[in-house]
Structures are given as C-alpha cells and as structure tokens.
C-alpha cells in the first residue's frame, strides 16, 4: 500500500506540463476549432514523442504499456492545457486494436503519433473524424474501419470538438473486439482530462479573483467567493484519488465512478469559474472559454452521469463489498 505518485511519475507530469505550457495551446486550440489541424498535429507528435500514447500500447508494438496510472498522469496534463483532438479516443483505439494481427498493422503508427485515431461512439459522433485517417466504428457485427461522412462537421458547445459522423460499413477489421475494455480506458482518460480541465479552471479563477477589484477590494476577499472556490477545490481533490484508484484497479465500476466524479467536479468548477469571472468569462475570445466549454462536453462524452451511476450500483466499488446484517439496522 502506497497510494502516491512516485517521483518518476511526478517528473513525467512536470515535463509534460512544461512542454505544453511552451506550446501555447490556446492558439493551437483556436486553429483546430477552425478546422486547421496543422498546429494540432504538430503538438500531437510531440505528445506522442513524450510517450503518452505508448502508455496504452504494449512494448512489442512500439509502446511501453499498458500503464494506466501514467496514462492518467499524462491526461491530467493534457486536460490542464485543454489540448484538442481525439486523445481519449486514440487510447480507446489502441485497446480495440490490441490483439494481433491488427496490433501489428496499426499500433506502431498509433504509438508514434503518426496516426491519430478516433472511435465512433455507437449511434453517436466520431470526434474529430475529419482530422484523422483512422476511424474505428464498433458495431454488433464487429469492428469496422470507417470513413467519415462527407459534409460539414457538427458544432459542439466546445468549439475544439468537431463532431463528425462515420459512414456505415467500411472494412470489417475483426468480428470481435474488446469494446468494454476499450470503453474503460477511454473513460479513464476522459476522467483524467476532466480533472485537468477542472484544475486549470480553478487556478485561473484564483488568479483572477486575487487581481480583480470591485468595491475597493479584491473580489477574492469576499467570503461568498472564497467559499465557492473552496468547494471547487474540495470537489477536485476528492476526485483525484478516485481517478488514481481507478487507474490502479481498472475495475469498470471504479472507472465509471472516477469519470462521473471528475466530470462533475470539473463542470461545477466551470460554473464557478464563469460566475466569478463575470462577463469576461462568458466570451469566446477570452481563453478561459476553451476550458469552460470542454468541461461541459466531457460530462456527456463516453458515459453520461446516469450510465456511470448504473455501473456503480450494479457492480459495486469494493472487491470486498461487505454486506452488513440487515436486522442490525
């Protein structure tokens, strides 16, 4: 029992954070939102070089994985910088394609960042399907390699998320694919990303309320402001151990609980951030909006709150889920 990141994991987070800070992600996000993917692809390569996608890919296919804890560490940083693109989906693709012979065919390019991938949610959208050449569609008959339906992508409330549709059919890659396991990894990555988004929103808002003056004092000295931020901090800090617990056990119910909790905490923090920034926070041109809108979008991606709660109630969260005597109560 040692439930802490080790120094290597912390150093990995710090390195990613430094790299992403230098990359000026807001500018990258804005061009990605306009459908100009060049800068995003370049950033993608650097993230891959740092080994992020390889964490979901076994060594024999060019990765270093599977390392779910390190993956969660990395995705917190990706969320903190609001990196655009089908990040969690690429992780999901690595799991879907994890068995030979597909693994040999696809994984090396996926781990190296050469080939970002997306996964079409059953009945839903293929995130950023217009930006990738590898679009997987899980279907009852098996796993398809799809093309994206031509036509304009749908606008998301998060302008950096481009909602495409995959065309039905395509190349049938496998009759059976580990969709449930892939979903667990996608949710884990999404939870981590949401936590990072929430942490960034909190940081920016704390900075804002210390600077912004109204009625002659920083608004951060008003108790109502302080308490909202204290609640946001508490929600995020209790989501964090759920995330790393889920990364450690990879049990689907734990991952669902982490996904729900991190997304709720991030969304509540977004509401607080918006409110405490006032009108400026409500504008698209202020960078805060890039995180605000992502917090909302992640909440319903890959498992709405209700779905996550169902899994918790059905499967339970503890392996040793002691059932107390009913008659004692």
């Amino acid at each position: 029992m040692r439930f802490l990141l080790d120094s290597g994991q912390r150093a990995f987070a710090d390195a990613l954070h430094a790299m992403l800070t230098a990359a000026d992600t807001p500018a990258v996000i804005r061009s990605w939102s306009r459908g100009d993917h060049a800068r995003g692809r370049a950033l993608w390569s650097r993230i891959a070089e740092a080994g992020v996608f390889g964490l979901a890919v076994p060594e024999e296919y060019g990765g270093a994985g599977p390392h779910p804890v390190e993956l969660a560490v990395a995705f917190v940083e990706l969320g903190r910088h609001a990196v655009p693109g089908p990040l969690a989906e690429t992780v999901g693709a690595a799991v879907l394609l994890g068995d030979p012979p597909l693994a040999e065919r696809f994984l090396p390019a996926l781990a190296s960042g050469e080939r970002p991938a997306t996964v079409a949610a059953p009945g839903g959208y293929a995130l950023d399907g217009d930006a990738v050449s590898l679009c997987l569609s899980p279907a009852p008959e098996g796993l398809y390699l799809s093309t994206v339906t031509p036509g304009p992508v749908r606008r998301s409330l998060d302008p950096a998320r481009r909602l495409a549709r995959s065309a039905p059919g395509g190349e049938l890659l496998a009759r059976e694919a580990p969709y449930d396991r892939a979903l667990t990894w996608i949710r884990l990555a999404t939870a981590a990303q949401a936590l990072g988004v929430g942490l960034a929103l909190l940081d920016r808002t704390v900075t804002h309320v210390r600077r912004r003056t109204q009625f002659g004092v920083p608004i951060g000295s008003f108790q109502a402001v302080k308490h909202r931020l204290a609640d946001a901090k508490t929600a995020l800090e209790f989501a964090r151990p759920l995330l790393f617990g889920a990364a450690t056990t990879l049990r689907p119910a734990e991952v669902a609980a982490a996904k729900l909790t991190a997304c709720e905490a991030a969304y509540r923090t977004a509401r607080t951030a918006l409110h405490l920034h006032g009108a400026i926070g409500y504008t698209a041109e202020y960078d805060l909006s890039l995180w605000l809108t992502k917090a909302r979008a992640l909440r319903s991606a890959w498992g709405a709150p209700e779905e996550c709660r169902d899994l918790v109630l059905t499967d339970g969260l503890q392996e040793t889920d002691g059932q107390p005597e009913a008659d004692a109560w």
Partner: protein
Amino acid sequence: MDLTHSPADEEFRGQARAWLDAHVPRTPLPSLETEEGFAAHRAWEAELAADRWSVVSWPERYGGRDAGLLRWLVFEEEYWAAGAPGRVGQNGIGLLAPTLFAYGTEEQRARVLPPMATGEVVWAQAWSEPEAGSDLAALGSRAVRTDGGWRLRGHKTWSSRAAFADRAFGLFRSDPETERPHQGLTYLMFDLRAPGVTVRPIGRLDGRPAFAELFLDDVFVPDEDVIGEPGQGWRIAMSTTADERGLTLRSPGRFLASAARLRHLWRAQGSPGHARDRVADALIAARAYQLFTYAAASRVLDGARLGPESSMNKVFWSELDLALHETALDLLGAEGERADGAWAEGYVFSLAGPIYAGTNEIQRDIVAERLLGLPKGRR
C-alpha cells in the same frame, strides 16, 4: 385571493392567441445573435407592430394597446407558449422605454418610442465598463459639456445587442468633481453610427456576437438626448434597473413555456427516472414564479412599489432558467453537446443569468440586508 382573469382579459388572451397562431413562424428564426438572425428578428418586430402586438403595455399613441400589468402578463404567457421568437427590441422596450415614461420629455417619447415599437430602431445598453461591473458607481466614461450638447469619451463593454443595433443608452460621468461616485452621472442616448463610435463585437461562449465593446472618441450628443437632469443619472438608472430586476425582466410566461417543453422532452425520451425530480421541480418552480409575479402585480395594482424583493426574483428565475436548461442537456445525452439546437442556445443564454443585471451575490446581499435587516458587512 382570486386567480381568475377578468372576461375582458380573457378576451384579450384569445385575441393574442389567435394572432400568434396565425403569425408565429413554423420553424424557428436563425439565432438572434447573428446578422441574418438579427434582421429576421427585426422583421418579426415589424410584423408584431403592424398589428400592435409589439408593445402591448404602452399607450396607443406610441403603438401599444394600453394593456395593464395583468394583461401584459397574459400576453407574455401566450407569447412564449406559442413558441414565438425572442425579442430583439427587449433592451429598449424593457429598460429605456420605462425610463422615458418616467423621466423623458414628451418630445423624446414621441421621437424615440414609435420606431422602437416597430423594430426600426433597435437599442443597445451601454452600462458596464471594464473596471465597473458589479460596482457600477465606479464608471469613468466622460460626458463633457459643449455647445448644444455633450461630447462622450470612454470605453463601454458588455453592451448587449450592440453588434447589430442602431442606438444605445447609458450613464456617463459629466461631473468628475463630486464627493461620492454616485453623483455627477448623466443618462443619455447616442447613435451607434455617429462619428467617433467604434463598435467591436464580442463573441459569447458559443462564438456569437451577443454583445460588443464601444470605444467613444469625442462623440457628440445633442441636449435633446439627455434623459432627466444632467448629474441625476444614477437615480434615474437605479429606478430602471429596479424594474430590470423586478417584474419586467423575465416574464413568467417564458419559464412556463420552457418547463412545458422540458416535460415534453422528458416524455419523448421515455420519461427516464434520473431526470424525474428535476423535471417536476422545474414545473413547480415555473408555477411558483408565475404566482409570485401575480402576487407582486396585485400589490403594484394596489399602489405598492416593488422594492428589494426584486432581488429574490432575480436569484430565483436565473437559477430556475439554468437548472431547466441543464436538465434538458442531460436528457439529450451525448446530443446535448451539440451547439446548434434550441436547448443549447437557451443553455448558453441561461449561463449569463446569474451574472448580469446584478450578480446573484449582490442580490443575496440585498435580500439579507434590506429584507432581513442583517448588518452590512464588508462584502
């Protein structure tokens, strides 16, 4: 206690409903916050005005129907229940017009109101400045006396509708030497296309230019466009924003219609249990808001003035509006992420509710201090 409308008001309701049935566009207009949508909404105002439905509570001579408060509430119920478009003239009709009725001259009313009623002139508000948001008394934009009028200099922001509107109204500091910051402000109207005005549209969260920054560089305003006495702007504006927080900012009809739509959506999705409580609570809150408003209107008709209770109103409707739209997006599941649905547009709009027209923190301070008599702390 009587919740029955008079036969005359019910007849009025029937007329409004019949007109709306015949005229409300079958498909929603494009978003009000786009150039195309703005034009379409302006045309809709003209259509309303042609049959005197755009400003029912105004005197007939300005284009209204002399409808009293209750009849206005009835109209609003019918208007929103019919799914009619948002009102592009809202800023002028809801904020400037009451000010003109209270403080304007007859000449101003005759000149300003009729083109406002038809949508020919759409008004933007110009209150906030970068350093004066909740703390409106900190305004720094200047109005300097000149021959026959004033010259404006300064920087306004969060000017809603200004991206596409024609004229604006706001407060300017005409006397910088006063003892208290609330003094020396003047309320005036100006043309957004006058020389010296630069309008820079600002996109809200979904990118649509729902408001703008205004840079004012020596903009001439003739004396005829000053409302009330120069230097009395704060008092005049406060009586306007008291209205803003009170009955006329958000009519109950709007939330009754939204709550009914939410129930419809919930049923269409198979009445999922996870949203059951929230749908019921939205229906109840909309009804509570309607009845609260009827009680307030009854008091007003008895001669009372709405005071700080308007602050409860503001907190209540803004939280209801947000909860209602968040529930709708949850019901839409993964589709809730899409930016192009009516629920998404309403959601983005509702996010601003707790912020504008006095943040909900300011409102709670007012409720605590003025309704409950708690000591004024340092906020």
